[in-house]
């Protein structure tokens, strides 16, 4: 680990001023940053600690949720459990209780991939760690890598569960920087790798995530987060599905679906969502066909073709579980 300076930001203005310097990184819960420091993934000159900023509110309002970027995962989960089960489930099936007590919601969105080549204790061929060094994973161990949206430069997936649930609920990220405040949908917050996998989000180096807005709606109660993994707890998703539905007497009027563990960003299933409108939740064949509509564009790698099948089955399961909740729709 390279030595670095450390300071606490007394207020938002001071934090923003500090990160105008490109050698300065932000630390909040630290559950990711400390890993990066130890493995040499991040080598900042200075860390600015933003834990003292008043950004930890968790406000449930009729029009939706406003979740402060510094709210802890374990604090947010119980507040959103009744009206937004998909969010609570995505928070509680992530990490361990100790990590959830520390990890902030903003930091959760800014996790980096668990690709084993990227996370190695030494530098391996990885365009995300060292641009131009290649992607050892592309023709290497691909079991946990992407099936959508990857490029020859990078095949990694994003590890956040919470981001997948937010993407399904059309949440937005509030960003503050020297150019003022702006709002970005979670689905547009992440970038696909393309030629430059080092840039993972639209967040500029001099900007901070301050809050997340989640709009209310008839679909948020009939929602579910299904995480598929071999270890029963404390493991990243092989495949995950966030599903939120509005339905009228079991006939889908509105469906929102996002996948985790399959791409560098939460992967919305737009075609499936469109195909589900008017479909009865009892009609398994129609549900299956609607799900399949989004998988024609799947591009599995040598070692992860099973994820295409797994993701479709998980989507079907998540849909039916979500449909069994919140019986009456708009």
């Amino acid at each position, binding site marked *: 680990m390279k030595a670095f300076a450390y300071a606490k930001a007394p207020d938002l203005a001071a934090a923003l001023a500090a990160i105008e310097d490109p050698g300065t990184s932000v630390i909040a819960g630290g559950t990711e940053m400390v890993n990066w420091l130890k493995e040499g993934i991040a080598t900042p000159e200075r860390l600015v600690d933003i834990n003292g900023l008043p950004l930890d509110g968790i406000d449930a309002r009729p029009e939706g949720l406003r979740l402060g970027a510094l709210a802890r995962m374990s604090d947010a989960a119980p507040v959103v459990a009744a009206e937004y089960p998909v969010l609570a489930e995505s928070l509680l099936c992530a990490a361990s209780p100790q990590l959830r007590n520390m990890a902030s919601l903003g930091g959760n969105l800014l996790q980096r991939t668990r690709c084993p080549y990227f996370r190695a204790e030494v530098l*391996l061929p990885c365009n995300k760690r060292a641009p131009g060094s290649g992607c050892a994973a592309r023709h290497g161990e691909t079991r946990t890598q992407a099936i959508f949206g990857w490029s020859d430069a990078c095949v990694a997936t994003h590890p956040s569960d919470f981001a997948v649930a937010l993407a399904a609920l059309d949440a937005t990220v509030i960003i503050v920087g020297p150019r003022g405040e702006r709002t970005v949908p979670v689905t547009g917050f992440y970038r696909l790798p393309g030629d430059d996998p080092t840039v993972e989000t639209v967040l500029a180096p001099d900007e901070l995530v301050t809050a997340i807005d989640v709009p209310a709606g008839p679909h948020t109660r009939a929602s579910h987060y299904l995480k598929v993994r071999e270890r029963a707890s404390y493991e990243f998703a092989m495949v995950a599905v966030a599903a939120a539905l509005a339905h009228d007497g079991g006939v889908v009027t509105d469906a929102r679906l996002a996948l985790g563990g399959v791409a560098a960003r939460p992967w919305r299933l737009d075609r499936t969502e469109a195909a589900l409108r008017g479909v009865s939740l009892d009609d398994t064949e129609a549900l299956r066909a609607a799900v399949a509509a989004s998988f024609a564009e799947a591009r599995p790698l040598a070692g992860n073709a099973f994820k295409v099948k797994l993701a479709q089955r998980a989507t079907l399961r998540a849909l039916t579980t979500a449909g069994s909740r919140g019986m009456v729709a708009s």
Partner: protein
Amino acid sequence: MIAAIGGLRRPDGAAKLTGAADYAADTPVDGVTHAALVPATVATGRIAHIDTAAAVRAPGVLAVLTHTDMPRLKTIGSPPLGQSVLPLQDDTVRYEGQPVAMVLAETFEQARRGAELVRATYADVAVPRAFGDGESVTPRPGLISGNPAGRVGDVEAGLAAATTVVTATYTTPNRHHSPMEPSATVASWHGDQLTVHESTQWVFGTQMALAAAFDLPADHVRVVCPFIGGGFGCKGFVWPHTLLAAAAARVTGRPVKLVLTRAQMFTSCGHQPATTQTLTLGTDDDGRLTAVRHHSVNPTSTFDDYAENATGGTRWMYASPAIDVAVLVEHTSRQTPTPMRAPAEGLGMFALESAMDELAYALRMDPVELRLRNEPAVDPMTGQPFSSRPLPDCLRAAAQRFGWSGRPAEPRSMRDGDELVGWGMASVTMDTFRLPSSARVRLQADGRTIVEAGTQEIGTGLPGVLTTIAAQTLGVDPGSVEVHHGDTDLPETSGTFGSSATMGVGSAVAAAATELRDKLDALAGTGAYPRRLADAGLDSLDAEARWDPAERGEGRSIHTYGAIFVEVRVDPDLGLVRMPRCTATYAAGRIINPLTARSQMIGGIAWGYGQAMLEESILEPQLGRFLSKNMAGYLVPVCADIGDIDVSFIEDPDTDASPLGAKGIGELGAVGVSAAIANAVFHATGIRVRDLPISIERLLNPVWDAPTPTTRP
């Protein structure tokens, strides 16, 4: 004779729970220097150049040592060394992760930063040799537990006479021990006296290796290790870091502390090698075996032949007129493998007990009945009588506790909601490693009894076991007994491996306590021993004794046994398996402490669950490195994975094994779990998984294999 007293709580428990127990890296040493290793980043080649300039300039760095300035070390061979290649002795790179330099600094952080700044470049870098690419060869003698090959009867004739033959290939992956406490060494020299605080399963082996490396008499080397934060085999032998810390301390003239990083734990102290095992079983119409063939091949390093004795249990498990077992090795680019809980049978019984299940389906016979029909009267390969053979009792007892009799035989015949339910079972066995040990017992006039033995406490509860034995033998209160352990200045004991400590050290303590009791009884007067000591004008009286297993058991086939039954729930859509319950019954000699014995078996079953469902260390073929050197990439079970575990014992005192009647127990619980789970998964799904771990993709295929191995008319 010793009787179990119902489970003494661990006398060392409070110290461990509160953090008061000292582990190697906790040892306070004045003026200590911190060391960090620089591992090779290629799997095979030669060091071209090592640029130390930036590291030497870094804050706090005192020295950077490479093969050009390390003292030449002498070897004693393996064991006690884990591998024959000594560290920093030449410019050859034989495996990824091999140390190529060591940085010494004032603080741990400075040493680690210095190590990051060392730039090594390599020449003659070749494509790593991967398992499966090369030739399988008969291992040279050395790192083998047992004979690599053996044959009795005519297997071909037995197969020709068989009416049902099952043959299949089973694989197990590379695994890493991953103890919670990483290996650590604190070394200091006083003249030509070396003191080492070490996380080791064998203080005397460490002493032997260090004395040889530095050409010293053994009594010039003291090794201290009261507690180990888990070892599971990776601290059984002596590995490069221990020699490096002691050598660096000699070079710098300052005490040196070296704590391995988690990533270095994947390349510094061995691993369990993958195995590819082929099993062939032939039976007559009644399900009686006519032939058994079990061959295994495992990868080893290019420089040592570590033969994983996976076929060991097949030698004595079932009656058959013809048995053929063989272990081969293949030379690959990796560190030398080493035993890992449970070696040998822990791997081989996955194959044998899976094959027995396949055979039971081919015969349409209950798998418990198949095993009972093949119960041998004597050891089938040696003809020796068994010292005890309570396997049928274990099978029947565990089957009854589990409720096996109601099981419908057909796969996919039990369902609960979205889940398929399956029941599976396996027989369990382990070899009994009996190793000599000494101990001293002292009774003091102040009423305290002191037990002294060099042995180290690895977490199994040995101090409680020794307390129980001494208290029972002397008839004193267990609360008055103190156990001093983990120091080569104490009486010599064997390593804490091979499930041997209770039997070996326990027998030595029993012998010493018996001798002491005789001495005390010879004193004049009556009343309690402390009073009689005082009356005789003595502060204390002691006795030392050594137990040698050669004194008994000659000509006997001595092993431990058990039976395990599991229920699995399989989500066939998602390929997920969970194990809600497990029942196991063991016969492992006299159980000295039922409380810690039960803990051992529960831990073993959880460990076996990891083998079955989660653990796999991928050796990346292009890079020749273990890919994920961290606990997020190498998965071990968590509490949420482990359902209800019902453990029971069959009282089976075996005085052929030891005078206590005790036998090895620690690793037995890890055996058979993976086969029982795989067999239950087959019962649930109709999918036969012959490759561990049982991952999602192995179960996603909805087409299930009908149980139709070859059956001849």
